[in-house]
Every structure is written in C-alpha cells, then in structure tokens.
C-alpha cells in the first residue's frame, strides 16, 4: 500500500470514529432534507441576520389585516368548495372510462384559472362584472373563480375512486339523490373535502396580488400589510415579524390536516345517482364567459398592434427571457420535488412542508436582493430562485403530498426488506412519480412565465414578457398589455410542454 492509500484509510477511519462518537453521520437523504429545508426558510434567515425585530407592529393594523385575511380565505374556501363540489358532480357525468378525451378537456378548462397567472382572471372579471365589487367581496369572488375548478377536479376524482361502487349500490337499492348525498356520500368523503378546503384556504391566505389590486384599500390582508410595511417606511422588522406570525398561524392550522385514505384505481361504476349534467352546462357557460371577458381586452389591443413594430426585438428578447425563467423554474422545481421524494418519509419534514407557508413575496424578493451582486445573470438566477422557492410549497400541497402518501406503504415494505434509499428511489419512487413531477413543475414554469412582481424588484431591466406587460400597463398602454399577455400564454405553454415532455423522456431514459 503506498503512502497516500495509507493516509486515506487513516482519514476514513478517523472520520468514521468521529461520526460514531458524536453521531455526526448524515445520509444523502438527511442532507437533501436539510438543503430543501434551508432553501425554503432562507429568506427568513437572510432577513433576520440583517434586521433585528425591535418592537411589535401596531396591533390595530395587525388584527384588522389578520381578520381580513381570515375572513376572505374562509369565504373563498367555502364558496370554492360549494361551487366546486357541484361542478365535480358535473364532471362525473363524463366518466373517465367512457369519454376520457372530453373529460380531459373539461378538467383542463376547470384548472386553467388556477394555473394561469392571476392577471388573466382579473382582466376577464373586470371586463365582465360591472360594477366590480372592490374589497373583501371582490377578493372572495376572484379567489372563488380561480379555485372552484380545482376543487371540482379533485372532488370528482375522489367521488369516483372512493364512492363509485357505493353509489351504484345505493342507486340499485332506490336511494334518493339528496338522501344519498347527505347520508352516504358526504360522510364518506368529508375528510377529503376538509383537506381540499384547507388547501384552498391556505392558497387564499397567502395570496398577494389579488388582495392588493381587488382589495381596493378596503380589504388589506396580512400579505398586503407586509408589503405596505416595507414600502411605506422600510419597516423591515415589522414586516419580518408579520411574516413569521403568518407562517406560524398557517402551520398551526395545517396540523389539522390528516392523511386521507389511499386512493384506488377508478372502476367503471354507474354514478347516475349523484351526477349532474346541468352542472356540466354551467361549467361550459362559465368558461365561455371567462374567455369572452379576456378576449374583449385582446380585441381592443389588436387595433394597437402596429405600435409593436418598432419594439419587435425587445419583444423577442423578453420572450426568450420568459422562456429562460420558465424553464429554469420548471427544472428547479422538478429537482426540488425529486429531492423531497428522495428524502421521503420523515415526520418532521412532512409536517414542515405541509404547514410551511413560505415568506411573503416582497420579503423573499428583498432578502435575495441583499444577497450578493445584482444585475445581469445574477438577477435572472435570483428571480428563478425566488419563484421556485415560492412555488415549491404550493406544488407540494397541490398534489405532491398525496402522490407521496400513496407510496408510503411501498417505501415502508422496501425499507423493511433492506432496500437502500437510492434503490427505493430508482426502482419504486421515481417510476411512479416522474409524470406527476413533470406536470407540477410545468405548472410552476407557467406561473414563472407570467410573473412580474418578483422580477420587478430583482431585475435591473425588463427581462420577461410579464415585466414588459407591467411596464405597458404603467404607461397608459393597457390594450397593448392585453396583447402581450397572449404571448405569455404561448411561452407558458412551451415551458409546460417542455417540463411534461422532459419528465417523460427522463422516465424513458431510465427505462421505466
């Protein structure tokens, strides 16, 4: 053995002894868990090193904002559940096993308002609803429009998976529709409905742009109050304090979330007893209105399209910028989701991801602004990092949690039988989750393409279509802004397809 090999084995032995003595052994899983955890709480760490919390913010403002946040989230969740449940009964009138394509079209329609940047829903609603009710009611209205489609898709899936055969039996036994809904279906799925409601509540609680614009000064929420604290007098300590309180509040609420029953394969069942074709008509009518409202703004913008001619190179660069940001966020989210999957399961980590709300948008942006140089490629990287950070917790709640819950028992069996974490990931976890990871990271990339709030703080110039749209809106040119929003849809779609396609290619390359 040469000298170097001896030194190396000596070092290895010393390390092993130290690890054993002080319990310093970190597996790859633990390291990844720690990396994800630190990444998600990094804005708080960064800000707390810069600003000490001295004194509490004024309680009058705080309680007012907390009450508004609570009321609007509660009402938004309530209406989303009520309408979403009914629309869900509409969706099951198109059984997946019989009309899979038509059902997919309706599901995509339902999910669009939730996945498209909020500006689309806002433009559409402001064009159609006149006068638009500003304040808490307006916030609830927009949040409900954005979320009831998602509730409908989730509810329809749950009913088909969990209650299909019972519905068929009740139908044969002659139960009435109302009686079955009240005595049979709701008791069976109330835990799932509660989980979905809580999910919508959390989304609405941390919503920023909708309360800021539609609140009209009447419905200041905690997120808006944090933004105001920073903007008004640079009250950083107050803003950090509010953000921490908000996170703790949501974390406590999330403790009531329990794992729901594992879902099973959808079987062909007769769901006639509960399905509602009328709701299907309403879904269609609603989305016609949604798109008409949006197209109304586009049509007035088309008359101004010639003014874009001299800015075509700028538009092209912004298009590429949006594409780059979208793809980076999509890829980073994919990696983040995979890191979570690799380090699954761990109780504290699961509970943290389930309940962690993330910092407010403006806080996260300013935290990254403090960190290192800005401008050029740094701005681009920081924007991508912040959007990934803000998206990751939502993606987890949006579908990753249930996906991972479904794998719990398989991972448990494999671990008991002695499989290594790497083997479990390669042979059990990855093959079953890569498609869902592609879809979720695709959604994050769509969010990133439409972003302007994060980019506006972190970038030194218009980098993306979202920023360009915002610049247009701030300089009288609302019609042209509507036209550019069409390009956001195109680039969003490209990023989404890249993420979904990329994940499939990865799956195939791994020969699954």
């Amino acid at each position: 053995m040469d000298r170097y090999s001896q030194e190396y084995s000596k070092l290895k032995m010393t390390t092993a002894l130290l690890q054993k003595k002080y319990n310093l052994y970190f597996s790859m899983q633990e390291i990844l868990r720690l990396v994800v955890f630190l990444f998600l709480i990094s804005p708080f760490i960064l800000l707390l090193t810069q600003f000490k919390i001295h004194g509490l913010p004024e309680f009058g403002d705080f309680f007012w904002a907390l009450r508004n946040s609570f009321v609007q989230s509660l009402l938004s969740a309530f209406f989303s559940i009520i309408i979403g449940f009914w629309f869900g009964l509409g969706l099951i009138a198109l059984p997946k096993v019989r009309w899979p394509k038509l059902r997919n079209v309706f599901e995509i329609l339902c999910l669009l308002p939730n996945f498209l940047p909020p500006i689309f829903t806002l433009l559409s609603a402001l064009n159609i609803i006149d006068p638009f009710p500003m304040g808490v009611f307006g916030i609830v209205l927009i949040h409900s429009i954005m979320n009831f489609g998602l509730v409908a898709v989730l509810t329809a899936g749950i009913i088909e998976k969990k209650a299909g055969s019972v519905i068929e039996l009740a139908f044969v036994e002659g139960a009435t529709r109302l009686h079955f809904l009240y005595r049979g279906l709701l008791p069976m799925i109330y835990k799932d409905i509660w989980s979905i409601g809580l999910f919508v509540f959390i989304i609405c609680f941390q919503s920023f742009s909708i309360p800021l614009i539609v609140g009209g000064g009447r419905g200041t929420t905690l997120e808006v109050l944090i933004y105001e604290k920073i903007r008004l007098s640079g009250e950083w300590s107050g803003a950090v304090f509010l953000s921490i309180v908000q996170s703790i509040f949501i974390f406590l609420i999330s403790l009531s979330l329990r794992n729901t029953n594992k879902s099973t394969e959808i079987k062909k069942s007769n769901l006639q007893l509960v399905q509602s074709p009328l709701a299907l008509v309403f879904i269609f009518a609603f989305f016609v209105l949604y798109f008409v409202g949006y197209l109304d703004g586009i049509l007035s913008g088309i008359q101004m399209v010639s003014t874009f001619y001299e800015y075509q190179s700028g538009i092209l660069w912004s298009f590429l910028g949006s594409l780059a940001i979208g793809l980076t966020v999509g890829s980073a989210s994919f990696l983040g989701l995979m890191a979570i999957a690799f380090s699954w399961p761990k109780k504290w980590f699961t509970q943290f991801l389930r309940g962690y709300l993330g910092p407010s948008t403006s806080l996260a942006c300013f935290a990254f602004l403090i960190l290192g140089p800005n401008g050029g490629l740094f701005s681009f990287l920081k924007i991508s990092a912040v959007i990934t950070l803000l998206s990751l917790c939502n993606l987890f709640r949006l579908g990753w949690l249930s996906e991972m819950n479904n794998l719990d028992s398989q991972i448990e069996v494999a671990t008991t039988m002695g499989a290594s974490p790497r083997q479990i990931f390669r042979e059990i976890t990855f093959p079953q989750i890569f498609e869902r990871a592609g879809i979720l990271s695709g959604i994050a990339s769509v969010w990133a393409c439409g972003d302007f709030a994060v980019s506006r703080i972190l970038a030194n110039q218009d980098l993306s279509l979202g920023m360009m749209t915002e610049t247009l809106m701030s300089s009288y040119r609302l019609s042209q802004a509507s036209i550019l929003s069409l390009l956001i849809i195109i680039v969003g779609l490209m990023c989404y397809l890249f993420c979904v396609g990329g994940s499939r290619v990865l799956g195939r390359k791994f020969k699954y």
Partner: protein
Amino acid sequence: MKHFVLFVTVVFIGLSLALLNRTNQGGDLAAVPILRVFGYSTFTGRWGPGPLLKASFEKNCKCKVEFIEGSDSGILLQRLRIEGESLGADLVIGLDQFDLSKAMSEQKWRNLSLGKLDTYEAVRPAFSGAYFVPYDWGQLSFIARKEGSSHFPSKLDELLLPEYRKKLALQDPRTSSTGKQFLFWVLDAKGEVQGFKYIEALMEQAHSFSPSWSTAYGLFTSKQAAMTFSYVTTPLYQEIEEKKKEYLSLKFEEAMPVQIEFMGIPDFCRNCELASQFVNFLLSSEGQKIIMEKNYMFPVVKGILEKSPFAAILPAKNLQKFKVPPTSEVERVLKRWTDIRRNTLN
C-alpha cells in the same frame, strides 16, 4: 440519456448567453466608460424617454448609458438604501418632492452645477436645492369621460355629491405618488382638521384605493369608475397615441397639485462627470423635448412646448406652491390616513 442531458444543457446555455449578450449589447464595454442611470421603469423602459435619451447622449459622450430599473420611486429609495454603492448608480432619476427629504436623510448626494436656465414659474423654487434638480413636472386633476355627463365637479366638495358615490378610482397614498399628491392637495386646500374630515367623508365616494396609478387608471378605462386622479396630460396621450377623444381633465377652484420629478447624483457615483453631463443634457432643449413627448410631462425649461399640443394644456395659474415636506410629516399624515381608512371601511 446523454443526448437528453446535452439537449437541456444546450438550451440553457443558449438562453443564458442570449440574456448575457442582451445586457452587454454594444461590444467591448471595457473600452468606454459606462454611465449607469437608476430610474423607474416607465422612464427607462422601451416606451419611455430613456432609450431615445440614451441614443442621443451616446452620440457625443464617447460613453455607454446603461439603465438600472426600479419599478417606482418607492422601490428606487429602498434599493438605494439596501444596495448602496454596490448598485453602481451614477445618477438617480425619478424622485418627487415627497421623496426628497427621505433621500437626503438616507444618502449623501453631490452638488450639482447647472448652466443658466429659463424655467417655468411653477418649478422655479424647485431649482433652489443644491443636490436635486427637476427635469419635468405635471399637474394633477380628476380625469372623467366626456360622454354621459353634462356637469362635472369644479371644487373638492362637489366630489362628495351622492352621484359620485363609489365612482372615484383613487390611489393609496402610501404606495402611490399620485395618491400622496391627492391627500396633500386636500390637506393644503382645506387645512388639516377639515381636510381629514373631508377624507373621512370621501371614503364612501371612493370606488377603490389602488396600490398604483396604473391600477386606478385601468379601473377607470375599463369603465369600473367614473373618474380617476391622474395627470392633466392623460387626455392628450389618449388623443395622440390612441386617437381617442373621450376623456377630459377637470378644473377645480382650489389651487391644483403639481408633481415635480427630480434627479440627483449620489456621492458614491463612479462616473460622476458623465452623470453631471447627462443631467445637463436632460435639461437641454433636445433632452427636454424627448422627455415631454415620451413621458407626457411638461418640460421645466421654457421654449420647448410652444407649437406643440402640450402648449394648449400648460397650466399657468392656480397651482400649489412648491414645498418639500419632511419625512416625519409625510409619515404622520399617512398614518392618520391609514387610521381613517381602517375605521371607516371596517
């Protein structure tokens, strides 16, 4: 697998290079000095005066002008405070009279040396400061639609008439400079005690208090609100750029608010001489004309807007006097407004 990784890598490298190339357009930047101008996005962006000013200045300065964008004056000050020298700004552009006191207390600024200028009376007092110089100004008022009404309010009290209930798209004074202008206009016109009573009564008339001018203006143009508080040049923009003649700015009996926009050179500037040259260029006939035509604001120097459509709407009298309110005063007033809004709308 290798091909896929290669493909993804090529896509990312390509996009990154494209973005880098975009920020470094113009070739060898090390050869010429770079003047970095920090301003709000509507000034520095494609549709603002920034690109034309840059092109024109670069013809003679043997330098490059680079813009650093902040979304508005609030963000400009925040970033200056947080990033300081590392921001690399040689010139800050876009502060208004409500920002000056704060800007002075948070940063050190350089003395400006200007040539002799023939300026408008409304902005002349604003030239008395040593560190900040105005480059444009605008008068604010309510903008309404011509159609659908034969009578428009001509004094502040008339805004409280029942017909305007929930019809005014206003801005939040804490986040919007135009919102701040409106609040201080009311307090100036009515005195503080009566002014706040008026603000309290006005809460019911407000359709909304938007976070920015653009949101309030958007609500007005989408016909959600009957009037909005904006610049008197707004109808002119609509007429010239969008060929629409449907808006008009209202005249009020009270002395009308004036917003003056300033620029200043921070003490940590690297190309201070170039920054000073750019300041003088912005005050030249060429610079002032570009600012007027692209920013839709009035020039501060006389002899620019004559024979232009701006001449017809140039306000000559009944304007508020220029003053720079101290930061503590601004914060106190905004705090009071916050309390009123919370208690009234609660």
